[in-house]
């Protein structure tokens, strides 16, 4: 309310100022100097008018983000560096490291022995992309994906890095990527939340995920991510208690809405309206969710495509299948987290299991979306929060080593939704340590994703505590090179 009053008085001032100064061209020129938007449509108004709608024709309508939590090694997946095998055991040259900060876990090592991948790489697809033998299914869909070898971030530890990827800031408290999207584009299907979150964990060394990663921050709470769990009730507290039937529930909700409405008229708190809307959506979700989470009707071919684990709730494969179903039903943003990628030690023992968990189902998701004609309008992202060092953390053995955190370059892949398919973007040096060409910062990544969704990342703003915030903070460039 206060905000409106201030804005109103500002408007009056502008009018008065102009009428008093309407003495000639000079004063108008002065006026336009003082109020830059005087003769054009003010930019800021655009964002408020455009809410719930793309700013321009989008390439992608929805996002499925397959987050590999813990940071999978780029050197055992998509960034082939034969030089590291040749130089195995030798120290990382200072000319390559260039004073890069390291984590406390390996900073005090006397040596930084370079470690090559124990897994072989082959070339696939029209881009002749190198992919390690750990990802045979991903290799089969290589012509449908865009491998980016030059992502980089600023954070070096899991929590800030993860938070940076998910919210555009390292410190937390900001709205999540999915929340921004829900805020910017609204929900397609009013029977489901616009932003859903699915968790799974592999056997590898894991790192936590916290609900702050799907928080709405300062945005309206309707934009918060809704977590689906693997238990009997995929969405907690959604089902009616025993003994309450649908019509009782309906009556109760109607009465509740009435009372909330009285409250709203009295206090004008928009959060009350949000609450009414959420109750209503939950009511509709009571029928929509069981339909979607029921995978028993999926044909045998789909089970074989995703792998039989897709019928075991709580696995990554099951979450991929669920992600497809949610997305198919108009959920704007489906966020998966798969834990267990933090291979500080025993990498050769841990990583095959992790890769096996995600490889088939990730590739299956691409194939499945494609065969339904949905890949064109769905942006799929696969990747972690940073990469891993080219040197071994701890002792380098012939068949065993570990890798520490590495923010300077790492690989992710994107597919569908206006992304160029079948290309490899960016170049890293032969040590897999620095970016040579075409680096993509986290802010650039967000700007590009928003662009694909028809949103101008500089115009998607929300004013909180006196300042307008963006997902991309004050940075971010749309990367044309990865867009079709």
């Amino acid at each position: 309310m206060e905000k409106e009053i201030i804005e109103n008085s500002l408007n009056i001032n502008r009018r008065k100022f102009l009428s008093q100064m309407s003495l000639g061209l000079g004063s108008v020129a002065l006026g336009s100097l003082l109020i830059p938007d005087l003769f054009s449509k003010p930019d800021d108004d655009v964002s408020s008018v455009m809410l719930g709608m793309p700013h321009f024709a989008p390439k992608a309508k929805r996002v499925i983000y397959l987050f590999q939590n813990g940071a999978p090694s780029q050197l055992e997946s998509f960034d082939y560096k034969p030089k590291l095998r040749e130089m195995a055991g030798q120290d990382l040259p200072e000319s390559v490291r260039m004073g890069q900060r390291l984590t406390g876990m390996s900073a005090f090592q006397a040596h930084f022995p370079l470690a090559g991948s124990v897994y072989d790489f082959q070339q696939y697809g029209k881009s002749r992309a190198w992919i390690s033998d750990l990802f045979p299914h991903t290799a089969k869909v290589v012509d449908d994906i865009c491998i980016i070898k030059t992502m980089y971030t600023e954070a070096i530890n899991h929590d800030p890095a993860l938070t940076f990827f998910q919210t555009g800031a390292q410190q937390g408290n900001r709205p999540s990527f999915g929340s921004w999207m829900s805020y910017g584009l609204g929900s397609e299907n009013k029977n489901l939340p616009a932003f859903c979150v699915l968790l799974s964990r592999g056997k590898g060394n894991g790192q936590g995920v916290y609900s702050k990663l799907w928080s709405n921050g300062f945005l309206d709470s309707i934009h918060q991510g809704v977590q689906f769990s693997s238990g009997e009730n995929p969405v907690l507290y959604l089902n009616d208690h025993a003994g309450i039937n649908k019509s009782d529930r309906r009556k109760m909700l109607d009465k509740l809405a009435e009372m909330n409405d009285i409250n709203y008229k009295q206090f004008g708190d928009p959060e009350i309206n949000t609450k009414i809307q959420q109750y209503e959506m939950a009511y509709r979700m009571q029928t929509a969710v069981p339909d979607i989470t029921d995978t028993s009707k999926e044909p045998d071919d789909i089970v074989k495509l995703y792998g039989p684990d897709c019928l075991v709730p709580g696995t990554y494969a099951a979450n991929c299948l669920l992600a497809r179903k949610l997305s198919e039903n108009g959920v704007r943003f489906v966020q998966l987290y798969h834990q267990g990628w933090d291979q500080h030690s025993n990498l050769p023992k841990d990583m095959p299991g992790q890769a096996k968990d995600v490889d088939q189902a990730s590739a299956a998701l691409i194939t499945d979306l494609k065969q339904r004609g949905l890949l064109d309008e769905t942006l799929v992202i696969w990747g972690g929060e940073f990469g891993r060092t080219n040197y071994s953390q701890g002792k380098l053995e012939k068949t065993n080593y570990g890798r520490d955190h590495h923010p300077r370059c790492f690989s992710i892949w994107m597919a569908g939704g206006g992304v160029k398919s079948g290309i490899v973007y960016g170049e890293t040096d032969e040590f897999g340590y620095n970016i040579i060409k075409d680096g993509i910062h986290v802010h650039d990544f967000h700007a590009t994703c928003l662009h694909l969704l028809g949103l101008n990342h500089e115009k998607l703003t929300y004013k909180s505590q006196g300042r307008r915030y963006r997902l991309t903070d004050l940075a971010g460039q749309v990367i044309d090179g990865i867009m079709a």
Partner: protein
Amino acid sequence: MNKTLKRIAENFLFAANIFILFLLLFENKMIFPAWLQSVGRMHPMFLHFPIVILLIAMCMEFFRHKSTYSSQEFYQNFTTLFLLIGAISAAITVIMGLLLSKENGYTGDAVMFHKWFGVGIVFIASFIYWVRNKNFFTPLLAKIFSVVTVCCIIIGGHLGANVTHGENFVSTPFLSKKITEKAPIERAVLYTDVVQPLLAAKCMSCHNSEKAKGNLLLDNEADILKGGKNGKLFIPSNPRNSLLIERINLPEEEKKHMPLSGKPQLSDDEKELLFRWIQTGADFKKKVIDLPEGDSLRLIAAKFLAPPQEEEFTFSPADEKTIHSLSNNYRVVYPVAVESPALIVDFYNRKQFTSKALEELNAVKKQIVTLNVNKMPVTDNDLKTISQFENLRILNLNFTDITGNGLQQLSALKYLKSLSISGDKIDNKNIAVINKIKSLKEVFVWNTPLKTDDINALKNENKNIVFVEGYINDGKPTQLNNPILLTTKYIFSDTIHLALKHPIPGTQIRYTLDNTDPDSVSVLYKDDLVLDKTLTFKARAFKETWLPSDSIVYDFYKSGYKPDTVFFADLPADKYKADGAKSLFDNKTGELNFGLGKWIGFQKDMEVFMQFNKPVKLHSVALHMLKNIGGDIYPPTLIQVWGGINKTHLKLLQTIKPIMPGNGDISSLFLEECKFAPTNIGYIKIIATSVKNVPKFGTSPNKKGWIFTDEIFLN
């Protein structure tokens, strides 16, 4: 003014006029010394004097015959003097200009006209000065001549500005808004649409047919290939030895750096564009899309070009209220983007769908470009409604109830680009309709009765359409995932019921109880499986057309009797004492990770006593133990079991010597069982002797080893 001085000035003006005439006649035959070049270069600075002085003088000349002024001596003298000074400064400026024009690069129409206007100004001004007091020079003539001079000054000055600053220097800020249309990448020609606009923007202000600095013209292909006075501009395919690349990459402060310091510079992308263009042979005809995908030149060129053309919708937008009223919880109608007239319609919830819901969309039938009725019970009849959505581009009909007969109707859709009929009963006969939809680009036919051969035939017939066949089961059997054991207890006192399931319907689970791997003839699991003794349970899943799963292996332990008291002779190590002696009968087994507080560990012999208030008949004592070479944890070298009716009547019931692990053995849990003839027992003592000297391959050779145990089973 001093008359002598005036006379000198008049003579100077006359001489200057003659000199100018001389220069004009013989300029092509003269060579100027270098210092004169500097004089010439002062032309752009000096020219401001004659402009201002002459303008004032001409104004005064214009009003000279007005009665108020004609009598004023000062006015008359001042005008005369100003006219003289103006004419002289104009003459000097012109001489300077003529010297400057001898420098490189001043050719072309603009320079020529500027020259003649300049010269004209000098001659006219001088002429006025000499004849203005003659009788024939009437007041009217004076006015005409002054106006003509002013006009000449304005036009000549403007032309000069064009030569110095480039054409449209003044008007550019207004004109720049109208950026020339960028060509879409699909039809862009590399030179015409990418390289040429770059040259025009950054190079051609100096290297054009007007100015031609260094005799280099960039106006057309022939001129570019000809090069300038320093030779050829570039060698195709050899950018590293090309003059152009050399010059643009010199440090900016170098004199030969191009573009000249102070002019707009080339960006890195622009430099790379020129480099790559020359590297690939400097072709003037090649199209951007003829370059291989992913090619660096193509990628850079794409940055300079407009993105692929967005579709412009020409139809008028629908009424906002109508759109709003059509949207409900199960039918969502929304514009493609802000200010776009095009609409997207999605249907959700199969139970809520009716044909009427589709018909109501007729209110916006012109505006719908995308329709999604995925999984809705849409019938052939409904396709008639859909076929009226004349501007439809994308149609998702996956998993609907259409049979294919109705598909004919879709031929009315003139703009349809993408059609999804996955999961529909469309066969080879009905699909033929797509021939009639010329605009089609992609068709999704996964999970239809169409066979691979049919689809290949379709692909051949419709080369411009992409058919997505999707996943086809290659017939190779896939391995089943493991059965899931729902029972979570592994230690039982009497019997235990085993519950198992498999996520894939129709899967058989087969099991063994004798530590062999189950095969396709092993016992079939039924829900009534009950165990009554300690054993290893193995189970596998089997299903036709699938490979059997791996075996799941679980050990089940029968723990028939629990003593009433249990205690140690010596206490276990502080780090591994679990919950004390009672942990040995808490039905909780430890894990391979021995640090989790479930194991009892001794780095010496373990002696444990158990007492029953009422004697029981026992025939077996078993210890559940851990071995872990890395942690120096070994089986006991010897286990002695003593028992009797009470503490004072103990006798040795059994002694066993467990097998010691060898080098490289992996950590594992194991059971050491001592069997003996059934005996009535009220008191029992177990002595487990620990390894005295850890073997050489161990972590701490020759030191004492550990023994770890977590449960004792008495039966």
